[in-house]
């Protein structure tokens, strides 16, 4: 069991290379601006429903940066939930796809206008379709991991979900299936703990001090980290991934994160001011350490805001899928 590392004082210099810090910041801003644009689209009637990941960028960006992106079992698989836009951007995805899904246009690259915002699916990048039912991704993750283990190599399966969802049996199934003595599996199980499930506080429902402790009985390495700090997230993810890649065994990582715009558009999608804003906090530190100036960071934000606005205008006039397309892709054709 690796001992908890001492959290660096805010005054200590940032331990990642400058270029990486800037890259992380850039992606965090990009993801935040994307989510804000999606919320705006919803509020302006250009989409029926919003759900997404503002508040999780500090964790999700490093995750995407550290993944081995490609198609098939030689690359990492991502079984994500619906707050993962920052990871997708860090994996190289263009934001306009998310806007198209929000507007349910025929051009939506993830579902052709069929599924909700944030429900990514990219076979070419091993992003398994995000589906709305909570926690089912934990039941499937051992399958992609088994194929990876068989192949050899160092690719891994990453599965993410929220804290409330760990009450579903599938979370436990994943623990069991990943730690079978006959065949331990290279799965990085992630729980992004924002302390809420819609309106229900985890404090009433969960007797666990830390969700991550649930791995211990199975001999699974586990850790709880501050997911609001991108530096800690990067380092811890890197270490956990290295372990899974090398040992071909599971790791359970819990990241404490914020839910900055509430659960979804169903709960209003308004900014929650009581929660830690990871981006604000990170920017303060970047400025303090002289990595970036306020001006530079503002420029970045403005540039993305303009880009997203332009993209949203483009998407606005794109056609919806035609009614008869409901009959397409019920089955795959033999190749």
């Amino acid at each position, binding site marked *: 069991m690796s001992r908890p590392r001492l959290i660096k004082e805010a005054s200590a210099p940032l331990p990642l290379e400058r270029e990486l810090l800037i890259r992380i910041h850039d992606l965090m801003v990009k993801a935040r601006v994307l989510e804000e644009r999606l919320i705006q689209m919803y509020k302006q009637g250009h989409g029926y429903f919003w759900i997404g990941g503002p508040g999780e960028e500090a964790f999700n960006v490093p995750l995407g940066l550290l993944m081995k992106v490609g198609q098939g079992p030689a690359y990492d698989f991502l079984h994500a939930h619906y707050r993962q836009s920052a990871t997708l951007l860090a994996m190289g995805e263009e934001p306009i796809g998310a806007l198209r899904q929000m507007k349910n246009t025929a051009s939506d690259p993830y579902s052709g206008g069929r*599924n*909700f915002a944030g429900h990514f699916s990219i076979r070419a990048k091993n992003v398994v379709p995000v589906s709305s039912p*909570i926690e089912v991704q934990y039941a499937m993750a051992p399958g992609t991991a088994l194929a990876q283990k068989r192949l050899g190599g160092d690719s891994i399966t990453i599965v993410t979900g929220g804290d*409330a969802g760990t*009450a*579903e049996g599938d979370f436990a199934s994943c623990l069991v299936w990943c730690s079978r003595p006959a065949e331990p599996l290279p799965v990085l199980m992630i729980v992004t703990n924002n302390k809420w499930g819609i*309106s229900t506080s985890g404090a009433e429902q969960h007797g666990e001090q830390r969700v991550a402790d649930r791995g211990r009985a199975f001999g699974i390495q586990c850790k709880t980290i501050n997911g609001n700090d991108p530096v800690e997230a990067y380092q811890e993810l890197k270490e956990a991934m290295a372990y899974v890649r090398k040992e071909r065994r599971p790791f359970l990582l819990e990241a404490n994160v914020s839910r900055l715009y509430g659960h979804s558009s169903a709960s209003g999608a308004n900014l929650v001011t009581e929660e830690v804003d990871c981006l604000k906090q990170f920017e303060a530190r970047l400025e303090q350490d002289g990595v970036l100036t306020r001006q530079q960071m503002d420029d970045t934000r403005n540039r993305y805001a303009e880009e997203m606005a332009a993209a949203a205008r483009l998407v606005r006039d794109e056609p919806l899928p035609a*009614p*008869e397309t409901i009959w397409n892709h019920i089955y795959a054709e033999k190749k």
Partner: protein
Amino acid sequence: MANMAQAIRMALHYAEENLGVTDIFGEDVGAPLGGVFTCTQGLKTAWNSPLDERGIIGMAMGLAMAGSRPVAEIQFCDYVYNTIDLLKLAGNTCWASNGDWNMPMVVRTPVGSGIRGSMYHSHSFDATMTHIPGWKIVMPSTPLDAYGLLISACQEPNPVMFLEPKALLRVKGEERIPGEPDDDRALSKMIDAPLGDRSQWRPQWPNLEAFAVPIGKGKIVREGTQLTVVSYGRTLPLCAKAAAALADEGISAEVIDLRSLWPYDWEMIQASVQKTGRVLYVNEDTEVTNFGEHLVRRTVDELFYSLLAPPKLLAGKFIPGIGLADTLEMASVPQLGDITEAMRALAVQQP
């Protein structure tokens, strides 16, 4: 008049006060939210459960066996499908124990399309549920029926599945619920939770009265002579609307709101079909192995020689989901135009 969500809330309040209901629970059912559709706001026995549908159904079964009276909620019926084994168990416990045990529990869950809910907030559950023996199954299409059926459900010694057509939850009724105030806004002030901080809020319940719609009884919502339309839930008001429109074309359709799916009012259907000789069943579940097909089968089984035309089913397309885009949802489940057309075609069909 109250909308269906308010009617459900009032029935649950009535049941807490008068019928021994002890637990109203599910995901986000308790304070502060009171249900994603507001159906459980302000109820004294409402509480929030873990995010675990199997746990919810299991909890209800345990409570029922211990003599409590639970009303459990599955937030959307789209998320009930990992509990089918438990629902089957709840439905067979009385039979398996040769009558020793019974399961007085109610499960409520919103069903159907109509809110652009995409693949996982648009499911229907009537086909799957009617295949599970041992349950009673109801699905109101008006606030008053919702009120009366839920009160009956809370008096049942057997498990009852209460399906809430989500497209109708916010539609106001045309009939008064016994006890509700005259003024809608007054009612809202009394029982709807305020926006913002609700920690101090308490509802003021009207003086509600007993009113039970018996399980198993349909309702003729429009009389007619040339064809019979049997429906329930979201599509029922569309059928009534279509019938009204067709009356102008000189087509006289009788419209039956089934209300109870199991047991259902066969006598009512039978009498109507014997009169009209033509019957259209309408629902929005996918059309293969659909409950409407059961009704068609029974119709040809028992009324074949009374039929002037083949009995028809209009249901959801057999595709893997309802897509988010408006174009997709509209094409996937029966809309007003589809129903009107199907009725017209049936009315005029000649061999």
